[in-house]
């Protein structure tokens, strides 16, 4: 009997039922499990960051190259290279064209320039600046690395939304009012689905246009615009209804998996015992509360 599996199952079953106990009411067992979870999740976060980001992406390249450089004595020359890199940053601000002048080009090509790895000191320094947030006096310094994060994600959000959502979705709605061939197919074989196929394009066109008009903020929803906006809110509610229906699928699946785990041959009896223990606990505490309440009255 593999002990780590069994003890593991006992812990897993207990913690599962502890979280389920929240359904009865918020109780110390649930709070203990929840706080334990918060700790585990935080600890897990740090360990994974350490092993899969800090070591491979920063520490190893930095220490590996610093050692190699000092052994081969090129340190001074390469350090000058990374300083030139700083000017490149400034050049980017004044316009990229000068940055492409031939003499700077050599700097950009990593094959000739090991300084790149050395330059990792910069993100390391910026990263450490992040911790100034914990000190009231220097907290403003943490805005520098914060700006890197905010700038990067704002730039990517701007680009991604324009390129991945805006253009392709507009293009996908530039379609003929009736799907070519669907009209003839309907008359050839009149039925629900051939009829729905004829409706395919008009639904998309009318739906998208009316919902876009609902989200128009410069004109009050009155008269004709009000009517079209009402059609728009109708399409919107249909989309929300479909979304609600699909979400039920996800939630029920999660519960099925948990019950499936509790009923598995390996955990079935553990579940039974733990359930009885929890039941006993709640009965005793309920009894104690009633007893205490009677004394206070």
């Amino acid at each position, binding site marked *: 009997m593999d002990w780590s599996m069994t003890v593991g199952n006992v812990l897993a079953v207990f913690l599962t039922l502890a979280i389920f106990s929240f*359904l*009865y009411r918020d109780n110390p067992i649930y709070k203990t499990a929840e706080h334990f979870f918060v700790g585990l999740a935080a600890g*897990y*976060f740090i360990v*994974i*960051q350490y*092993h*899969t*980001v800090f*070591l*491979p*992406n920063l520490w*190893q*390249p930095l220490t590996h190259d610093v050692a190699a450089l000092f052994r081969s004595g090129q340190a001074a020359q390469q350090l000058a290279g990374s300083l030139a890199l700083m000017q490149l940053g400034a050049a980017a601000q004044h316009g990229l064209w000068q940055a492409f002048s031939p003499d700077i080009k050599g700097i950009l090509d990593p094959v000739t320039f090991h300084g790149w790895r050395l330059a990792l000191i910069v993100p390391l320094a910026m990263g450490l600046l992040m911790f100034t947030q914990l000190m009231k006096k220097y907290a403003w310094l943490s805005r520098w690395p914060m700006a890197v994060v905010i700038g*990067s*994600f704002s730039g*990517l*959000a701007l*680009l*991604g*939304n324009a*390129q*991945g*959502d805006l*253009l*392709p*979705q507009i*293009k*996908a709605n530039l379609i003929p009012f009736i799907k070519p061939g669907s009209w003839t197919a309907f008359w050839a074989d009149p039925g629900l689905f051939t009829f729905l196929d004829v409706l395919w394009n008009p639904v*998309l066109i009318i739906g998208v246009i009316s919902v876009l008009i609902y989200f128009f903020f410069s004109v009050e929803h009155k008269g004709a615009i009000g009517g079209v906006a009402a059609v728009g809110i109708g399409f919107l509610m249909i*989309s929300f209804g*479909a*979304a609600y229906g*699909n*979400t*039920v*699928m*996800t939630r*029920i*699946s*999660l*519960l*099925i*998996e*948990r*019950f*499936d785990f509790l*009923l598995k041959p390996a955990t079935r009896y553990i579940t039974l015992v733990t359930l009885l223990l929890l039941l006993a606990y709640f009965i005793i505490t309920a009894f104690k509360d009633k007893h205490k309440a009677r004394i206070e009255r």
Partner: protein
Amino acid sequence: MAKPTARWTERLEHLDRRIIFLVVAVGILVPLVAPLGLPVTVTEPVQAFRDQIDGLPPGSAVLVSADWDPGSRAELLPATVALFHHLFQRDVRVLIISLWPAGPRMVEQALAEVRGAHTKTYGKDYVNLGFKEGAEVVMVSLGDNLPATFPADYYGTPVSTLPVLRGIKSYKDIAMVITLSAGYPGTKEWVQQVQDRYNMPMISACAGVSAPEYYPYYQAGQLKGLIGGLKASAEYETVLERKGFAVAAMDAQALGHYIIIGFIILGNALYLINKWTNLGARKE
């Protein structure tokens, strides 16, 4: 003036939540203990997902991004297991990454279920490159240089020593991206940042809750296949003849849905009855 005792319909409308919880629990337990084995017909987006993988040229490399965690394990573990079975049946190199911290361990659990049934070796046919923090920034940096973004696999072995990654520098060497998605970052960010910019063929398996938001991508052709939720995973398992948890859960899924439909109708019926009778009372 003592509050008039509420009519039973009014008391029922404010039913204690725990009774509702009990009904749901029983509704899910019964079919798990006594399965009914109801049929599962395959819908078009799932068929398209399967055809896309079948259409992969031999020897091509596929990037799987497992962006989910224990919170959505019930829906995405069956989809991931079915996907790995499908990929391992074909002559395809499988590179697995994750943009969620718990992702790599979920991939390990899926691989454990699949390894036995196929003759694929780690490092030569497939690799788990683990997790990287940075969401969209990671997606974009894979476009320039994959080995620099993932210098080592999940176990710390440098990628230069892994044959499966030989000759793979960026998205140009990747035939398809398969996004397994449960939230942010997920399929939406992959479509926004990668699909159009690198015009990368892309298919997605996602939690049911995200499916409605991805249908416009499927209709626009940005996604070439879509598995939305556990029912779709059950269809995928059926199509691959590898029936697993998803198909087994369909009976409990059916009963669960009809319980919720029942609650919506009952709740609104009570609401309307109470409204009309109160209206009536006030008129007399």
